[in-house]
Each structure stands twice: as C-alpha cells, then as structure tokens.
C-alpha cells in the first residue's frame, strides 16, 4: 500500500505547503470576483465562428455515393475493362480479331 500511495506528482512543490486548513466544521469561503466583461474580444475572430456543415449527413452520403460511382466510372474505365478482361477472358478472346 505504501508504494501505491507514495510519490505523488508535483508541479510546484511549494503548492499547498503553507495551507492552513480551516475548521472543517465551518465551511471555507471562496468568493472570487464575478467577471463582468465589457471588452470586444468576447466575440471570436470572424473566421472562428463555427457552424455545422449545412448539408445533411444523409444528403452528403448520397452525393458522396454518386460521386464515388462517377469517379469509379470514368478514370477507372480502364480498370473496368481489364477487370472484365480478366473475368471473361474467353469472350474477349472470342471477340478478338485474332
């Protein structure tokens, strides 16, 4: 148990070194100043006003799917052909002029 409890991390060894505990039966008073900001930096920089993407997640997925389809159609047309070529070697050979 001793080893588990020892060696507590310390950021500043002085912290709490002079703590005079108040009577635990009478609660401590901690009344910080209430912050009442009047400066303009409560507003974030204009580019840091964050909103959610306006497109609904469902629509985004549908668009993405169609985009994916389109993408996989055009530049991958060769792949498609080779793909087919691989899958149907016979027909391709059959259609071959050779």
């Amino acid at each position: 148990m001793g080893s588990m409890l020892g060696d507590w991390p310390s950021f500043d060894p002085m912290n709490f070194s002079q703590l005079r505990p108040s009577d635990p039966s009478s609660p401590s008073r901690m009344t910080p100043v209430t912050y009442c900001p009047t400066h303009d930096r409560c507003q974030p920089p204009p580019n840091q006003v964050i909103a959610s993407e306006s497109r609904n997640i469902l629509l985004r997925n549908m668009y993405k799917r169609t985009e994916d389809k389109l993408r996989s159609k055009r530049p991958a047309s060769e792949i498609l052909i080779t793909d087919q070529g691989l899958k149907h070697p016979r027909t391709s050979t059959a259609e071959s002029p050779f």
Partner: protein
Amino acid sequence: MSIWNYVVTAHKPTNVTHSCVGNFTGPQELNLIIAKCTRIEIHLLTPQGLQPMLDVPVYGRIATLELFRPHGETHDLLFIATERYKFCVLQWDPEAAEVVTRAMGDVSDRIGRPTDNGQIGIIDPDCRLIGLHLYDGLFKVIPFDNKGQLKEAFNIRLEELQVLDIKFLYGCAKPTIVVLYQDNKDARHIKTYEVALKDKDFVEGPWSQNNLDNGADLLIPVPPPLCGVLIIGEETIVYCSATAFKAIPIRPSITRAYGRVDADGSRYLLGDHNGLLHLLVINHEKEKVTGLKIELLGETSIASTISYLDNAFVYIGSSYGDSQLIKLNLQPDPKGSYVEVLERYVNLGPIVDFCVVDLERQGQGQVVTCSGAYKDGSLRIVRNGIGINEQASVELQGIKGMWSLRSATDDPYDTFLVVSFISETRILAMNLEDELEETEIEGFCSEAQTLFCHDAVFNQLVQVTSISVRLVSSTSRELRHEWFAPAGFSVNVATANATQVLLATGGGHLVFLEIGDGVLTEVKHAQLEYDISCLDINPIGENPNHSHIAAVGMWTDISVRIFSLPDLNLITKEHLGGEIIPRSVLLCSFEGVSYLLCALGDGHLLNFVLNMNTGELTDRKKVSLGTQPITLRTFSSKNATHVFAASDRPTVIYSSNKKLLYSNVNLREVSYMCPFNSAAFPDSLAIAREGELTIGTIDDIQKLHIRTIQLGEHARRICHQEQTRTFAICSLKYNQSSTEDAEMHFVRLIDDQTFEFISSYPLDQYEYACSILSCSFSDDSNVYYCVGTAYVMPEENEPTKGRILVFIVEDGKLQLIAEKETKGAVYSLNAFNGKLLAAINQKIQLYKWMLRDDGTHELQSECGHHGHILALYVQTRGDFIVVGDLMKSISLLIYKHEEGAIEERARDYNANWMSAVEILDDDIYLGAENNFNLFTVRKNSEGATDEERGRLEVAGEYHLGEFVNRFRHGSLVMRLPDSDVGQIPTVIFGTVNGVIGVIASLPLEQYTFLEKLQATLRKVIKGVGGLSHEQWRSFCNEKKTVESKNFLDGDLIESFLDLSRNRMEEISKAMTVPVEELMKRVEELTRLH
C-alpha cells in the same frame, strides 16, 4: 398585477458538475477550473492553498468542460459546450487579465434525437479534432487545421444508438475513439473507430471488446506509454488495449467520477456513489500492463468530479454534498482512512424542498432547505444579513452617544464604556467579576452630555463637552488639562483621534487642537461661512495616530469638505445636492482604497473614493439605507475594518473585491454603536437601541449566512409548525451495508432551535413520504402535521396505494391521530377552507375533518376532481386551486361551496412538464418546468366567450437555466413597510444546483425602466465566449423557442454596479438617466435579496 417580474439570484449555484486542472492563466500557473452548471470558477494553486481568481457567468448550462493545448501554445485553452448546443474556446489573456474567446459556434442539428445519457464532448489528445456526441446515432467533429484554428463542423454516422461513453485513445496515428455502448439486448460492448477527417467518416478501429460488465458506464483513456482504455463497471474493472486485456473484480459500486493522478496514467482516483474514494493502479513492466490493483483510501462527499491538484492534494467536486479539498496521506488515520478533509465548500444543491420561517421572530425570513442527497443529505439554514449574538444587556433610556476607552494606551482591551445622555455622562467598566458596573473617571465632566471621547497618546483620554475639551490621565483618571470654548460659544460637534481634536462651535468656527503629554494646544482656527453639522479625522493614512485631512459636513449649502491638517486649508468641496443635511461623515479605508462616507438625515448614504494625496473625491455613489438619520462608526472583526451605520435599518458596510457592499444587521433599530473589545467580551459591539444597551458579538461579515445540519440521510420534504416550534421532515435513510431494500423512510420531528431529532415515525416498507403540511381544521383548535405517502412497488408503474397520516405533537412526540388510505400517491397536501386538499395521482381530493362519536377524528372524503395526468403541485388561494400537472402545464380549479364540488375553471393548453407552481396574485400564476424555464399564466376572467375564459393565457416566459423544485412566498430580507422595496411582493425559489433565487413582482413603471436598462446592459456587458444573453434567456423547450417576455434578468441588471465608471456613464448616456440615479435604483434592487 404581478405580470412584470424580476428574477435574481440570492445564492449562486454551488453544485459542482465538472472540474479540470491545467495551466490556464499562465504557463507556470496551475489552475483548478470548476463548473457550477451556469458558472465557471478559476482558481490558482498557491502555497497557501486554492486562491479564487474569477467567477465567470456563462450564458448556458455547461455540458462539457475540457482544458487542452493545441500545438505551439504555451498554456491551455478551455473548451466549453452548453446544453443548448453552443460551444466556445476560451483563452486567458494575462496582460489584460481578461477571458478572450478564441472560437465559438453552434453545433445544433435541426433533426436529431438528443442523447439520453447526456452530452459528450472530447478533444483528441493530439488536437486534431473536437468530438461531440449530442444526438443519438451521430458523432459531430470540429476539426482543427494545422494552425490550431477550428474549421466547419460535420456529422459522422455512429451505428451505436445507446452510447454510454466515448473517449479518444492516446497514441494512435489517426484520431481514434473508443465507444462504450449497449445493444438492444442490454449487453455492453466497446468498439474503436478511426476518424477519417478527409472522408468525413469512420473507419473500423484496431480492436473491440464484447460482453463487458453489465454496469460498465465509464471509460478512462490511458495516456502513453501504456495507452489503451480502462472500462469501469459495477463489479469489474477492465484494462483493454489492442494487445492486452486485464480485469479485476471490485466490490459492487457505481463509479461516479475519476481523476488521473500521474501523467503516465498509472494511477487513478475513483469516487463511487457512496462517497468512497479508491485508488486504481495499473501495474506494468515498462510498457506492458501486467495487472490492475485497487485500494480503498477513505470517504469523501459523493463526488461528481475529482481533480488531482498537486503534492497529494485533491479537489472533490460534489453535486450531492459539500465539495472538498482533501489530502492523501501516506499513513492511515486511526479509522484506516488515508483521506484528510482540509476544506469544504458549501453546496446547497440539490434543494429538494424548503420553507421560509422567522425563527428568531424578528420579522425576517430565513430559508431552511432540504439539501444534498443520500448520505450527504442535510438541512441548511440560510439567512440574509448579519446577526448580533447578545452577550449582555441593560436597560438604559435616552442614550445620546457611546465610546469605549482603554485604561492604558498599550492595553489591548477596552475597559471603559462612556455612555452619554442629554445632560449627563456615565461611565461603565468591567469589574473583576467581568460584570459591567458603573464607575467614575474623576477628570471627566459627568454633569454634561459628552460630544466625543477618545483614547489619546501618553496614557490619556479626551472628553469633549459643549463647553470644553478635557484631557485626562487614563491611569490616575485625573484631569491634566482643559481647553475651553470661547465665551459665548458652545461646541456643537467634535471628533478626535489619538493625537488630534477637531471641533466646531456655533457660527461656523472650526478649531483644531493637538494633544501633547498633559497639554492641549490650539493649533488652528478657521471661520467657515455656515454652521458645521459633522466632522471626522479618523486616521486612514500611514500614521494610525494622526490624520492629515479632515472631513467636514455643512449646514446651509449642504456640502462636504475636505480640509488639510493642521492648517485647515480647504482642499475639496463637494455639494451633496438636495435639502437634507449630512449628519455623519467618516473617513475610512477598505482593501487599500480610501473612502469618504457621508450619511444624510433621511437615511441616505453617499460614498466617494478619496484620493489621499490630492483630497479629490470621485466615484460618488448614493444608496438608501433607511429613513432615519444615520451615524457611522468603524469597527474591526476578524482583522478587517467595517463600518456600522446605525439607523432605523442598521447596516454593515464592508468591502469585497474592492466593491462596497451593504449587509443588513438583524436588529430593528440602532441609535448608536461603538466597538467594545473587553477581556470578557472580546471583539464585541456595544449597541444602543430602544431603551436598551446591548453588548454582543457580530457574525462573520457576509451577506448570506448558511448553517449546516448534517443529517446523514436524505431529507425530501420540510415544513415548520409555529405553535410547537418544530420542523417536521420526510426523509429516507440508505443502508449502505446491505444491498437490497435498504431504504427506510421516516417522518421526523426536529426542534426548531437546536435542530435535533426529537421524535421519529418510521413508514412502512415500500412507503415513501411525498408531501407534508402543518395545518388545523374547522372546529378543532389543534394544529397537526399531515403527511401524504405512496407505496412504491417495484412492479407498478404508478403507485396505486398511499396514505394520509395526521400527527399531533404531544410532549415533543409525533402521535398518529388519524390515517386515511388513498388510491395513489399523495403528491401534495394543502390546507383549504378548514379542510384538507390532497393531490392523489390524477385526482384532486378534498377531505373534511369529522368528529366521530367516540371523540376521535377522521378524514372523510367530500369531493374531488379528475382529469390530470399526475397532479403533482397544488397551491390554493381562497376557493381557487392551481394545479401543476406532470405534463399538462397549469390548470385552475374552483371549489363550489353550495354544490360541494370542485370544477375546472381554466387551463393552459401548452404541454409543459411542471416542476413547481405558485400563485402570484388572484390572476397570475407562476410555473417552472422541466426544460429549466419559468412562465406565468393569467386568468382571463373578462373573456367574451367560455372558450376564452377557459384558457389560461401565457403572460410571461423566461429561461432560468435552473431546475426549480419549489416556490415559496416570502423574503430573505427584513421588509420595512415604509421603504420602496418593502412594497414589492416576492417569491423565493430553490433549485437542483443549490440556487436560491427571488422573483419580485414590480410595478409597470419600474419594470419598463429596468427593461430599458437591461437592453442597454446587453450591449455593454458581453457574454463570455460570445454567447448571447438574449438567446440564453429565451424560453426554450422541445416545441418552441421564443424571446423572453415579462421577466427581467436581475443578475445582469445588478452587474451594472460592477462596471467601471466609464461604462456606467456610457449606459447613463444611452438611457439619458444620471449615473447616480441608475446606481441608486439598482442598489435598491440588491436589497431584495
């Protein structure tokens, strides 16, 4: 009409919901940041302990609070998300000492089912994104760009619908979350996902773990080098990573909070539902986890949050009891506990019920709350103002002034009390038996009224009468020297300190004397154009015995002037305005700021900031303390100086955070006060009032006083019985040792002075007390306690059986007199026309109190009214009954005597889920509902059609941001009928977060004025994090969001007083109302609470 309402907080929230530790205010400063639902507190860790820095109001209910540090930052930023789907990132600017908003935004979705298990907000440890789980089936991502700027947020579909917890894993190349969820067979599993930011989608993560502990509820991500996650269940704790799985059994418990101890994540503090604190250790060999170990450390308040601070000190934030600062000791105490509680911080939450009583019978309300829950349940007596604890008193009529004197200059205690009357002066002193008895100071003139007295240097005393100034030895008590007023002149007013005397005679003559060893020297004389009404030379400069300025109040031109000493040159002249002369001036210093206080003959007080070098008076403020002339006197308590303003409404003026505050003293009328610090009565005050001289000590100087009565059980209902001077509470006690059916419900009788249990009545098994009332019945002079109960059976959705129990207090015991079975839970009881009105499930039921032949009484059902979902809250006024329904808002019923029937008169057709109702006046009813809103409805008696008359029209709407459990008519402050605020009716409310608030119904003129002030203040006082006050206060539930109406935010309005002079002037200009007028009107409002 009570339509125009002003809502203000008398006691701020104290329920600690979140806390975190980091370097927020500077790279070398370690801060504790605490969230109390709608407020954030920033504390600094210092050698002396926790030092409060700032209390930051947030325009939202805080749902998540996290500190994080983006790459390249030297200190941490604070991320806050609110329950209404706003978020902000805050940064501390050390130079300006301001909280600056780095980013903010709205992350709400138009469609989506809000999560049942609360909102989750987490930040990737490598600061690549913020993740939010706000709606079932969706995970919202706010990505960071490489400069640490936030970008547009987007949703990712999350397959798991019943999410219990989500955390980011450490040490992953791609941001990876771990999700703890429950499937539709109620089994619990975890799963990991990588967040593919580019594709805006999840990729199946590196690992998952099925079929965990059925009570698994909390994930703790483990930082590098170990990484992985801890899964905290009710019976097991599991460590899980891609390569390891370790589990240990634990004693059954529900872990509510955890705090990481070591940066490498090898130790954690766990707090459970019983307030037990455990240490969980991950044993490892280098980076390989070899096992887990858990040890009980001791008991704390039931923790809602745990933050390891530094050097074995830990902050325990609590929702159910007081929060604490604890220390973890290496060796156990005799009880085997390693926990030492060093400080505790009051928490009134949750306030489940309360009552307003006048225990000291002095015309001032005190609130007694049922606070806390489970083992941390308590009663709290909350009182406004400062009490005087009477030590001794004597009857003495016609006191005209009082001063205490020491028998030697270096004596720490006062010996003499000089009491002045119209034509004589009497000296009281402590004798050897520590009793006050009359004595003599031979050198004093006892046949004349004393105008002023003071201790002087060289063991001397000074007495000023209308004809002379006498310097007397305090040891021999003999006259050493005397200065006489010139023939034909008499001294009107005088003041002195240890080395100086300043007096004024008729004709505007001002004379300044200096005190030497056995000699009074007239140093300076000045002739002013008018008579002098008051003077002061209280030393507030560096020399405690001597002042270099004098304050003088004048007749005729109604001014206050500052003169230099000793040459009596006029430095400053300030016209007070009006026709009321200053009656008392005082130079004083609080927290290093010098002030001139000037009290007028009509109970007003002006205060100025005084520049000690130039004598300049600035920052003039005027407040109304009472209606009679005020005399000002300083006194010390607990090493701080305060001012006592004696008048018909005695007040203590003190300073907190460099702002002057005014606290009522709980005495009716005080004509004179002087500090009297004798050996027998240290730190006491002598107070002259109503033919009596009282010596007493004074409470701590603060506005609200809270006394705690720990119960060790959960009090849920309370009521007071004046006749028997008792409280009765309904409480439940949890038995922690056994697991099942360990709840016991009681009705307990408590003495209203000692707060001790004097009698208890145990309820049956499964029987809960739901309501309590002190009442009497027609044709019976006894007063009774009535208790409504419900039998809560595990198999029933709603109770079908309950009881009404009628008790009488006899010989300090609760005696059951009558008992009536009901067909449901008795949610509410009210005294009604000499009968008993009960709300039982869907029904409102009226019972008569009938005398049986054998002389005993019974409750007999008379009539009832059906038609509610659950009638939970009932208030009555005359024959009218206002019902707050579980989900059908407010309805108005009427009791018809002739027919002996209860009928519905009108209802509000909105679907509000009610949490409290109250009747403000004949026509206006106040309600609080489930979504933290307040509203008022109006009876429409003038409606043209039945349909119109049958509709309660919504009159006011407001988002309070607090869950109100109870409204009660009453006031925390003494109400004087002749003051303006004394006319304003008020309702007090208590909330789950421990807020005590006041709702004041204002006249229209005042409301309109304050509404304009509020609108102006909104432009000047900015919402922290860029959050809008207007949006925050808008009434908002699942169905609608509408602008607040007919309610004003008193907290915003009263923060006017915290503004700098320039800002006040800005507002004054916009309002075209002088600053002083604004200040006076707002100060008056602060006297409502």
